[in-house]
């Protein structure tokens, strides 16, 4: 990743120097070993701040919405999952493709700080370096290398698009990763196997953890509304009360609003401060869409109509006795 980091800086510098773009979005290192945050730079000398490491988990594409409103041409670094989000934003007309230069970054996976902490490897940790699946833990005492993906985010372990699906330039060679399609929805299947009472208990327990912070929504590349229905006081559904019913309403609606639009980047689950497995909700809807209306991966192909804004005359349904959708 370090070599690619050099390329990232060089490319950003060049793009700004040549005025190919007005601004470059990338990541910058912060205080701690895991602390990486998004930065937007406009001057070539700032390019030296940019990094590419195992903690560049944030998808920068959502920031493009604001930049495009200001009519800026922006260069942006996108990973595989980020590019899916980018495409979804494109599909939702939130960004203008012509105003963006995408520097694609094939990604082997990002490291989950929680997993590192759980193994107790965070004590005195200064830096984590990654080369393919070899993780190097740098401490004052020295370096320790561990091979394997045990520190990857769960979402990265299930990643189906390690390479950007849309880009103008690719900064690294494409990565080949095999993921079993069979296991894709095993989380959903496990829940489906529960009894109806168990399921309700499981979910109401999950939902009741919610602190109503909206992080799941605000990080989501599919939740790009100018004003969310839950912030729209005129919609008649907004409420900040942390009561079970409101939380259930919020979470069902959130998942339903990203139906056929969720790119399965797993960011909602990652950022949830309460640890609600929101991806299990999204996965259920994806699984049903695939089963009922044919395979669809949001964010992969911009030209394909999203499942909820199209139909087939002989679509199946899940509520009539015959389920075949006919009369």
């Amino acid at each position: 990743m370090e070599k690619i980091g050099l390329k990232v800086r060089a490319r950003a510098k060049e793009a700004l120097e040549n005025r190919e773009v007005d601004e470059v979005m990338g990541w910058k290192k912060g205080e701690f070993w895991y602390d990486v945050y998004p930065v937007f730079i406009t001057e070539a000398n700032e390019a030296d701040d940019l990094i590419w490491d195992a903690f560049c988990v944030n998808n920068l594409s959502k920031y493009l919405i604001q930049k495009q409103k200001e009519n800026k041409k922006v260069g942006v670094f996108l990973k595989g999952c980020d590019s899916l989000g980018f495409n979804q934003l494109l599909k939702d007309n939130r960004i203008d493709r012509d105003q963006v230069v995408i520097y694609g970054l094939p990604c082997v996976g990002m490291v989950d700080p929680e997993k590192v902490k759980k193994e107790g490897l965070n004590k005195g940790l200064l830096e984590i370096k990654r080369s393919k699946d070899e993780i190097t833990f740098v401490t004052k005492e020295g370096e320790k290398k561990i091979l394997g993906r045990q520190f990857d985010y769960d979402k990265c372990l299930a990643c189906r698009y390690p390479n950007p699906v849309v880009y103008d330039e690719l900064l690294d060679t494409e990565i080949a990763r095999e993921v079993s399609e069979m296991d894709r929805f095993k989380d959903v299947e496990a829940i489906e196997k529960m009894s109806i009472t168990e399921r309700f208990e499981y979910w109401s327990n999950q939902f009741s953890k919610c602190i109503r912070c909206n992080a799941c929504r605000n990080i989501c590349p599919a939740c790009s509304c100018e004003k969310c229905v839950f912030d729209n006081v005129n919609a008649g559904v907004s409420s900040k009360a942390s009561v079970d019913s409101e939380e259930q309403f919020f979470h069902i609606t959130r998942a339903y609003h990203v139906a056929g639009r969720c790119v399965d980047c797993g960011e909602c689950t990652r950022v949830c401060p309460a640890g609600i497995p929101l991806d299990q909700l999204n996965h259920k809807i994806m699984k049903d869409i695939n089963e009922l209306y044919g395979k669809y991966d949001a964010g992969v192909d911009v030209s394909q109509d999203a499942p909820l804004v199209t139909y087939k005359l002989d679509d199946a349904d899940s509520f009539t006795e015959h389920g075949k959708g006919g009369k």
Partner: protein
Amino acid sequence: MKKILKSQISQLWKRINQSYELFIPIEKDNKVNFSMWQEGDQVNLEILKTNSSPKNIIFPQTETYLQFEKNGKKINMESVGGKKEAYVLFGVRPCDVVSFNLLDNVFLREPVDRFYEERRNKGIVISMACSDPEETCFCSAFGIDPENAVEGVDVATWDMGDKILWMAQTEKGKMFTQSLKDLLKEATEEDEEACVQLKNNIKEKVKNLPLSNIDMKKIDKSMKDLFESSIWEDFSAQCLGCGSCTYVCPTCHCYDIQDFDGGKSGERFRCWDSCMFSDFTLMAHGNPRKTQKERFRQRFMHKLVYYPNNHGTYACVGCGRCIERCPVHIDMVKVIKKLGGEL
């Protein structure tokens, strides 16, 4: 100084639970939070920072304080809310205890918030020293000693591994300790020495923390300069506008008052609000803080400038929860350093 062996600790919970509601860090689905203890719960005293702060116990996220019912053309109203049951809050870390004091500054000054006052009066706060401060801790920047009892605790405790040392700090704490005298043993001299040792260890650890260098004095510009600083533009651009920082924060105390319209009946409640939200302080004419920049600035100016102006102390206790929770790692420390000219 008293002590109790860890092996007997569950008896302590049971005993407290007989006369009080006991709020304590409980682990559930890999997350630890203060919640009401019940037999069989998995108490976690090792965790330094609960997922959310214990603020929820003294200042609930949602609190109904008025119920009304329409009867013909009349409306009957009933005041509810506050807290009637006595409770014990066990295992609060010093930073979180200080956050209670910060909230007191707001809610217990005239006009006193009666519900808040009632809640505070009903509670006994038992702190626990931070044996092992973490890299995101920066309480020392605000003069908080994580090894000691801080102002506002009724009882302070220290985790000695196999036992817990216990020292009452207030009258309330003493009476409470007295009521547990059959469970709490007198600490030995060795214990007290070990405690001193522990405190020294903690002090040493705090010194070596990566954030120990934070110096609040560096933020020395005038309020106007700070208000107009360009850093708000820079950082707010990355801020997603979610409320996770404010909701996990022990010192954030903004709230909204809303009515639940149930037609014939209904209720008025207050619930936490977040200055990060677009509808925060929304008024009929619109929002006075139109963009995320203004909302972002409000949060930090409030904690670092306005509150200190009003109350003489910063409205941050350095718990570091926002550092861990911010989805994009735009946090208090970055703002402090940037305002101090360090970044």
